[in-house]
């Protein structure tokens, strides 16, 4: 099969790749770019672990071919921290014990980062609705909701600047 040349931005850096069309965006990130913070759980769009942000929107990177991200701006879990400092959302997760085994955490953080960037003042109900797209088997979800509510303040400040 014919490889396709693509160029995109990943976490602010330009990336060029020549790939098989059947390579998913998750595959590109993990195998070719070695950004293994994006986790693959079910690989058919049910668990949410592989969520990344493409052109500002949270999407499942297992349900998108890398060729479809040609020209896009992609943000992964590796792009959330501010240098060596955790982002306010990551700090809130740490403080509230919103992660245990950590497998689902990258997908939940990217999802909630996309949500709060767009809607910096979500209700608890809205957070629950959005969180329903991510499966977590450890936490019972409640500390995650608490952490997101707590971190939302930082996004509201940001949007006022």
């Amino acid at each position: 099969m014919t490889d396709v040349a693509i160029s995109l931005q990943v976490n602010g850096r330009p990336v060029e790749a020549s790939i098989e069309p059947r390579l998913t965006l998750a595959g590109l990130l993990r195998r070719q770019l070695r950004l293994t913070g994006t986790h693959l759980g079910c690989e058919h769009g049910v668990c949410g672990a592989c969520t990344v942000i493409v052109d500002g929107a949270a999407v499942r990177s297992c349900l998108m071919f890398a060729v479809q991200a040609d020209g896009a701006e992609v943000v992964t879990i590796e792009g959330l921290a501010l240098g060596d400092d955790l982002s306010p959302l990551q700090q809130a997760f740490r403080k509230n014990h919103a992660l245990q085994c950590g497998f689902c955490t990258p997908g939940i953080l990217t999802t909630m980062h996309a949500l709060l960037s767009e809607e910096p003042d979500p209700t608890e109900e809205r957070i629950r609705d959005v969180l329903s797209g991510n499966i977590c088997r450890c936490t019972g979800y409640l500390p995650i909701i608490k952490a997101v509510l707590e971190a939302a303040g930082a996004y509201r400040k940001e949007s006022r600047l």
Partner: protein
Amino acid sequence: MKPAPFEYARPGTLAEALSLLAEDDARPIAGGQSLVPLLALRMTAPKLLVDISRLSELKGIDIKPEGIRLGALTRWCDVLNHPQLAAHHPLLVEAIGHVAHYQIRNRGTVGGSCSHADPSAEMPAVAVTCEAQFEIASMRGMRIVPAEEFFLGILTTTLEPDELLVAIRLPHWPAGRRYAFQEFARRTGDFAIAGCALFWDEADGRCISPHVGVFGVADTPLRLPTVEATLTDHPVTPGLIAKAADLAQESVVPHGDLHAPAAYRSALMRVMVERALSSAAATLPGEAA
């Protein structure tokens, strides 16, 4: 890499896309939210994927006096975030609120859902209930197909291999129409085990032109003509609602599957129809159900 190998093309115009789809064993991909799982599970393995996701001809929501035209590439988030759509078609917006999850709503499209034709999906149910018209294009020309004739069975539509669904037209929705959408799924965002979409207009407290659709209970979404006939020209009272729900249950014999035995699905459908009728009857026109 789970899918079988395929070639990939991203045409710049609809005409180019249709010419590529006329090739042997080509399939369109847009959001990919239904197709990529099928490819990953190797339930399908086309030679060529034609990426239509950037075709401007297939985008846009047009609200006109005669109705609403949804370009096939309209995503779930476009429907939910549209500033006027809830006023012009509240049933559509309420139904789409039940589609999958946040991340999937950012990529999944109305055209993709209808072309995929899952019998439990919301968009096909709304299209059948509302007598939508499907605009279908190919190198051979354009044809318009009513929703009820579009869906042929589980994951099966009237689309020929070289054809592409380009838009869905929903007829005008008059103000004051009563409506409701009900579905039951074990987890938020899952496909429904059974559901009901319905609406009617009212004159002198009587039910005019009721449309009652059910989904998840047969190979395609279904209108229930016997139920509609029972409601027509009568006030929708609790007694009539119970009678109509019984009739709905008698008129469809669902299959059982992994998710629900046939008897459970049948009973659940009755409850969905009853709740939808009660909710629509209780809601004042213009208010959300």
